[in-house]
């Protein structure tokens, strides 16, 4: 409900002029974050794409290299996790409250985990980021401009890796690992009773949503159908190039990069 006297302000944030390490949009006025030494790296991708495995490996490697690492993950905030679980188990949740609960969880982790860690110079590895929320809400038909304004308080990560996979591969992985779950299958969208069909069409929509954000949010797209160590190699190469860039005028005597 914006002010009537205020002509429809252009949607803030997200589009264009993204500066890594700063707020996307209007931000949090009482928490200035300019100049914080930490780095925020987001690993995105749908369910069962191997994010958590890759983050574990990345963390070990970074710590061996001497970086302080903090992990944060979707719906893991102590304030909101019980509430979100409770709300998911009841039948009263609707699209809007779903989105807002996720946003509250994210705000809590941003204020209590991410921003303090960036201030202290940690590398923050985020297992999923706001793109998960944007994709899920987008697949449920929530207004895109409103979503981007809502998440205008989020910090643009220094790196966003998007683990990309096709639905066919995804289905096999999820079935091998643990089976399909109600929410991951988008059963709340009530496209049908068949969980397999629902999963397939919902995950397809999510993949489309992610793909549509790739340019807007500068995703580094990683082919996640490859073996775990190949993916990890690529992530490490890119993270290293970002954290420890080789000076432009490096003489040829520069030591070869070792792992």
């Amino acid at each position, binding site marked *: 409900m914006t002010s009537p006297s205020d002509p429809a302000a252009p949607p*803030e944030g997200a589009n264009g002029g993204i500066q890594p390490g700063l707020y996307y949009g209007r931000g949090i006025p009482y928490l200035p974050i300019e100049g914080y030494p930490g780095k925020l790296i987001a690993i995105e991708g749908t369910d069962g794409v191997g994010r958590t495995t890759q983050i574990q490996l990345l963390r070990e490697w970074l710590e061996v290299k001497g970086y302080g690492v903090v992990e944060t993950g979707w719906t893991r905030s102590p304030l909101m996790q019980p509430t979100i679980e409770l709300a998911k188990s009841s039948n009263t949740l609707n699209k809007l409250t779903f989105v807002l609960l996720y946003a509250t969880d994210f705000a809590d982790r941003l204020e209590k985990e991410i921003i303090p860690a960036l201030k202290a110079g940690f590398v923050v590895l985020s297992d999923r980021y706001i793109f998960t929320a944007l994709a899920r809400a987008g697949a449920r038909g929530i207004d895109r401009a409103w979503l981007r304004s809502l998440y205008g308080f989020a910090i643009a990560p220094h790196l966003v890796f998007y683990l990309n996979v096709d639905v066919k591969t995804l289905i096999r992985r999820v079935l091998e690992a643990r089976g399909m779950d109600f929410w991951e299958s988008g059963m709340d969208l009530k496209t049908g009773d068949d969980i397999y069909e629902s999963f397939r069409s919902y995950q397809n929509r999510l993949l489309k949503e992610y793909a549509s954000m790739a340019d807007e949010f500068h995703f580094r797209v990683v082919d996640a159908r490859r073996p775990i160590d190949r993916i990890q190699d690529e992530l490490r190469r890119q993270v290293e190039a970002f954290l420890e860039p080789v000076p432009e005028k490096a003489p040829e005597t520069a030591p070869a990069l070792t792992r």
Partner: protein
Amino acid sequence: MTFSLLHATDFADRLLYKIIPPLKAGMIVLADRYAYTAFARDATRGVDRQWVRELYSFAVRPDLALYFRVPIDVSLDRLMARRVKLKFYEAGMDLGWSSNPVESFRLFQGRVLDEYDRLVDEFGLEVVNASGSITEQQRLVRSVISRHVQTTGAEMTDDEPL
């Protein structure tokens, strides 16, 4: 931020279950506080004003919004007469402006009132002087509301035949 978003979540839930259905049925909905409360309180807590307004853009604009304006001392007197302790968040104790609840309330709610004053013009709130007696206020409220609602017999009955 979490304070603001939790309230928005609660509001969204009430909007979709308690406000929109009766409106669709042609009923009158009386809301005790509305999005304006969030605009005033969240801004006082340092949340971006425009962000909160955009956050609540899913809210239905009320046909009539009444703002009961009262000086800070009157509201404090009324609260203290009823109960011994001010609520933590009501007194803005989370902001750490004062360790004395009454002092904190005065500072915090004073700023909240300033925010409400901005809203009066921005959203065209009808101001009711809430320092007066209940009867005086109620008379005023009734006259304002009767200007907006025509309770003619025709509107009170369903036009669809049984």
